[in-house]
């Protein structure tokens, strides 16, 4: 489903954010990427939805290959990838409901009533049905984060990316959120979760890779893949 093949990303000014990263995730697999601030976690996720392109190497997601994908096909890729951004990226002048509905509107896969159902279902999973009419600035940080998760899963994506999805959440709600992500994953969605909190994958006993200064290692082994 997702495969990184010798991926290196150098930002302007010779900042190496990823260097020779290799790994592979099948449908239904989950990978935690753990590392300190500035390690390259968000950059790795950006590569998956092709918000950034590798400087060298190749990223393959579903049938899309980073080297050959035309710009006009990128939206098709992104519609199959749900992302919880580290900074949420909610549209400020839309309600929680409309923010969650956005991917459905974009893919145009559902009519009025079905759309409503699916949005309320997603909001329900993150426990925010009662806040559906609130604008992002009327939500607490953690609530915004949960709305972002609802938006990421509303479309039953093939791939789910979550960047620091519990950064603004207390232990109780944080565990609930991780549980939701695991549930989605169990439904067959390939999942990558980036976090600075090493306890999260440990508690779950999940596959975790450590990233530091752009290099990815699987603990108890050499470089991955």
């Amino acid at each position: 489903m997702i495969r990184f093949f010798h991926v290196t990303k150098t930002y302007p000014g010779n900042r190496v954010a990823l260097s020779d990263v290799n790994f592979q995730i099948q449908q239904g697999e989950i990978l935690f990427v753990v590392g300190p601030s500035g390690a390259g976690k968000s950059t790795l996720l950006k590569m998956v939805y092709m918000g950034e392109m590798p400087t060298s190497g190749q990223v393959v997601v579903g049938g899309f290959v980073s080297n050959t994908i035309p710009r006009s096909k990128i939206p098709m890729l992104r519609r199959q990838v749900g992302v919880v951004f580290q900074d949420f990226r909610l549209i400020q002048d839309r309600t929680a409901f409309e923010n969650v509905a956005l991917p459905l509107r974009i893919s145009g896969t559902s009519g009025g009533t079905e759309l409503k159902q699916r949005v309320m279902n997603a909001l329900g999973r993150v426990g925010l049905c009662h806040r559906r009419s609130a604008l992002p600035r009327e939500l607490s940080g953690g609530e915004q984060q949960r709305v972002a998760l609802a938006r990421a899963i509303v479309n039953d994506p093939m791939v789910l990316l979550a960047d620091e999805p519990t950064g603004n959440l207390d232990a109780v709600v944080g565990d609930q959120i991780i549980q939701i992500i695991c549930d989605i994953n169990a439904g067959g969605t390939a999942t990558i979760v980036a976090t600075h909190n090493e306890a999260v994958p440990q508690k779950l006993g999940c596959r975790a890779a450590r990233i530091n200064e752009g290099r990815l290692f699987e603990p108890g082994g050499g470089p991955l893949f």
Partner: protein
Amino acid sequence: MEKFLSRTRYFLGEALQGFVRQKSLTAATLVSTTASLMVFGIVLLVTANVELVSARLEQRKGIVAFIEDGVSNSQMDFMRQQMAAQAEVESVAFVSKEEALEQFRKSLGEDQVLDALGSNPLPASFEVKLKAGQGDAEAMERVAAFIGSLKGIEEVSYGGPWALRLDRLLKSLTVLNVIVGAVVGLAVAFVVANVVRLAVLARKEGIAIMRVVGATSHFVRAPFLLEGLFHTILSALVALGLLYAVHRVFTQRLPDITFLSPTLMGVFILVGVGAGMVGTFLTLHEVLREEWA
């Protein structure tokens, strides 16, 4: 189908929201575009009326060739053939001296004066009708000159000078229409482009987010296109309404004045809406190009 409707409703809602949100801006836009379009509309109105006059004249357009006294019948037949052979000529009718007198008498209403004349002073004549569509002033002039050169024709009379002047006026009005249309179109395009630019800027982050969530550029553009369309259509309609009001005011004094023909109405709406859409497209192209690719 339901999906299509729901999507259209969504785009319409988005567009309307931008339209309604900044009221003072929408009002300013409406005023400027309507004012520009009114200028164009008035020029078109003048054109329509000149066209009408010209068309009426056209209906009456014909050439009367007066025949010298004492021309033989065979000579007349020959003349008639010559005239009818002209490509522009539709029909040639002969009016004898007697018929001419009869017509004249009728037109005067049974007056006695004519009887006092003793002999009939009116010449026989041919009434030449030109084919429809061949009736422009130059063709008429050419045919009249030809007829005048025939032996046995005393004089040729036709609406030439007037028609010529009117045709020239119509031509320069057409040029004026094009120029004013272009200038007004530019103004409308500029104003609408501007309001669309504002709409896009106001939703900058929202657009970036949509992109990253998988929106195609069509999806992003649709509401702004609609918003531009709203502005232009509203302006065009208001301008058309005002124009009609102006027309009504004039008809109270000059009842013969016509409103825009369907064609001119089409031109008017095309220029207004077309310019607005061009402005919208170009701005969207400029503003949405790279930054939020």
